[in-house]
């Protein structure tokens, strides 16, 4: 599938000429004409940039509602009008549609960071064939910074899948008639250059020492924990706890893979404490998942059986409240407070990060690539041993290994070649999704059956029968995931991924090694 081609339209005459050529030779239809203020969003780690996708929040000038568009290479993955006219802060603020659910999974609990903002006039024209079918879209994008600096108009030619030849013919026609200068830089990067707000800076650079880089990432993750902490205590939004736990898991990965980079005594102590912090939040997260997923699971039952589940929903709510209460007690404990203070002190203490391990002064890229290669090797080796007869625990362990690799790649993402990183992360995330689905259905099934015990004392067994139906559905989902494992693992254990691993430390344009 061809990629988007970009040209600068430097003079008003060029714009008119392009239009004239198009109207003379192809059917043309105006798809949309917008005047908006738009901002690009990404996570601090640049998760969207790593997957070659963009998330735009647009507010119309004048009448209309704000909108959110997730797109990749000119192809809209999802576009939705927003009920709230404010920039989403994280997954919890995304519309509840299938594609935004995928986006929420992709950012995995991280918050959005507001990137560059501009005022834009955007016209989208469809080129039509003799069946009035769109073959390519021409996007004219005239933007200026909030300070009023105008950027050259950008023309994007977006071929539709299966119509590459038609799009190429139109492009050739336009280029023959109008002198346009080709440019590979998309508008987001142009705006970033003009406003000095490039992709959110993570403070990571390949030449940093391993200890300094580890410290930078740990500081960022600690900020995520601090930001979500009050939300976790209130228990109002399950996304806060999810974001909190993701940050905790990432810190644990960095501590696990921080041997010879972090002071060993501190590393041992904090690994132990972070494990505890993860453990005390697990029951509440599981209870949140039961509550969030239960309506969907119940919907798979016939109407009569669904009604039978009403008493069980009460059990789930009660159970979640109990878990929350116990978790809040632990989070407000002296142990948590002392550990939190010690951690912040450790992160801010320069001495603790100087000469703290054999590899602490090595360039970070060299150290982290070795860790990534090791994590990849282990994942491939152990994944290759999984058969249809392997016990569930083997898949659970593999999921942990997958997480380790994913978090290393994502936490140090800004150091790597973007295209190589995306090539590894795509199949890895798919693999993790399948392993996650398998584990979730197992854990949920067992937990629901245990909780159902609370209903066993009543004479009416209709709720128990209905729960049996739900658990059966979970079993079906679990076995579907298990059956998909070999296929998704095959896509990960692939030469393309291996080659991408070898390219991780090369810069995108030059092909030279970064270190």
């Amino acid at each position: 599938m061809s990629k988007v081609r970009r040209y600068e339209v430097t003079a008003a005459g060029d714009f008119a000429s392009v239009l004239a050529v198009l109207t003379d030779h192809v059917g043309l239809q105006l798809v949309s004409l917008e005047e908006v203020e738009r901002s690009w969003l990404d996570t601090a780690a640049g998760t969207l940039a790593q997957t070659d996708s963009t998330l735009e929040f647009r507010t119309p000038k004048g009448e209309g509602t704000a909108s959110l568009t997730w797109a990749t290479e000119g192809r809209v993955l999802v576009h939705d009008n927003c009920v709230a006219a404010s920039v989403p802060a994280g997954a919890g603020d995304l519309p509840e549609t299938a594609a935004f659910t995928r986006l929420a999974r992709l950012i995995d609990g991280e918050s959005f960071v507001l990137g560059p903002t501009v005022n834009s006039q955007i016209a989208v024209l469809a080129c039509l064939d003799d069946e009035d079918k769109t073959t390519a879209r021409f996007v004219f994008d005239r933007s200026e910074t909030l300070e009023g600096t105008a950027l050259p108009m950008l023309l994007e030619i977006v071929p539709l899948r299966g119509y590459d030849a038609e799009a190429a013919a139109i492009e050739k026609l336009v280029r023959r008639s109008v002198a346009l200068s080709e440019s590979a830089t998309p508008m987001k990067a142009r705006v970033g250059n003009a406003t000095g707000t490039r992709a959110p800076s993570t403070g990571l650079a390949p030449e940093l020492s391993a200890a300094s880089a580890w410290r930078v990432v740990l500081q960022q993750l600690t900020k995520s924990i601090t930001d979500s902490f009050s939300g976790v205590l209130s228990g109002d939004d399950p996304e806060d706890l999810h974001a909190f736990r993701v940050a905790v898991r990432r810190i644990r990965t960095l501590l696990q893979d921080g041997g010879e980079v972090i002071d060993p005594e501190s590393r041992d102590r904090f690994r132990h404490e972070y494990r505890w912090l993860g453990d005390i939040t697990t029951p509440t997260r599981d209870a949140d998942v039961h509550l969030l997923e239960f309506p969907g699971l119940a919907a798979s039952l016939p109407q009569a059986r669904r009604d039978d589940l009403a008493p069980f929903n009460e059990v789930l709510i009660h159970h979640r409240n109990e878990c929350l209460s116990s978790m809040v007690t632990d989070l407000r404990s002296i142990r948590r407070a002392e550990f939190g203070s010690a951690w912040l002190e450790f992160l801010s203490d320069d001495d603790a990060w100087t000469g703290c391990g054999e590899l602490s002064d090595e360039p970070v890229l060299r150290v982290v690539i070795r860790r990534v290669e090791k994590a990849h090797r282990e994942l491939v080796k152990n994944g290759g041993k999984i058969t249809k007869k392997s016990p569930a625990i083997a898949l659970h362990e593999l999921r942990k290994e997958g997480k380790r690799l994913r978090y290393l790649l994502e936490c140090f993402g800004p150091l790597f070649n973007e295209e190589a990183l995306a090539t590894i992360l795509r199949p890895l995330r798919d693999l993790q999704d399948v392993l996650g689905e398998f584990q979730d259905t197992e854990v949920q099934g067992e937990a629901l059956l245990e909780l159902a015990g609370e209903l066993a004392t009543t004479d009416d067994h209709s709720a128990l029968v209905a729960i049996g139906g739900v658990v059966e559905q979970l079993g079906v989902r679990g076995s579907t995931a298990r059956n998909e494992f070999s296929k998704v693992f095959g896509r990960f254990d692939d030469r393309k991924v291996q080659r991408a691993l070898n390219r991780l430390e090369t810069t995108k344009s030059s092909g030279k090694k970064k270190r």
Partner: protein
Amino acid sequence: MKVLATYNIKGGVGKTATAVNLAHVAAAEGNRVLVWDLDPQGAATFYFRVKPKVKGGGKAIVRGSIELGDAIKATDFDNLDLVPADFSYRHLDLWLDDAKKPLARIRRALRQVDHEYDYIFLDCPPSISLTSESVFRAADALLVPTIPTTLSLRTYEQLDRFVEENPDMVRELKILGFFSMVDRHKRLHRRFMTELRTAHPEMLEGTIPNSTDIERMGVHREPIGSYGKGSRAARSYESLWSEIQTRL
């Protein structure tokens, strides 16, 4: 990824309108959707304004000499792609008959692209043949539009019997029948609906009305959700889709 086939032994019951409109609803929700028009008449292809021709020929896809992904055309709607029909599909049964493991051919072709989509709709030609059996093997569910008339009910029961008699072929296949082209003013339609629901309580509750709005798809060459958003017919496809999702 789920494969849904719109199927009925009988023609003219609304199979193509179902495939096109449900696919459009699913894509508008943000799902990645593919429609494969297997009917040589190419009505789904026509509705999406795509030329009814498969690059390299339909036979090459079935034989596996070209990838299904190479035949895919984007429609004018986000997240909604199409494998167009090809008039040569009229020979599909013969090609399958010549092939090794004919029943696995469609499933094998779909496997090449299944990671790109959340839902794949197969718009099948009417009949019961090797093609339909290959579709049964590939699909997770058959969506069976049924007009509440004697002949349609007869074919629905033929299908039901076929499925019952061939458990190995259909495996986990779900049969999701629903009433299509319903005219509630007709007493006969109301009577047949009651009778069939009693005999087959598993039928979906959602119904598709007999509507000129749906017939106008041929004029607009678009799914009804594009030109008739909010109409009764468009809403009926939306609620049918919600119900189908709960059954998958």
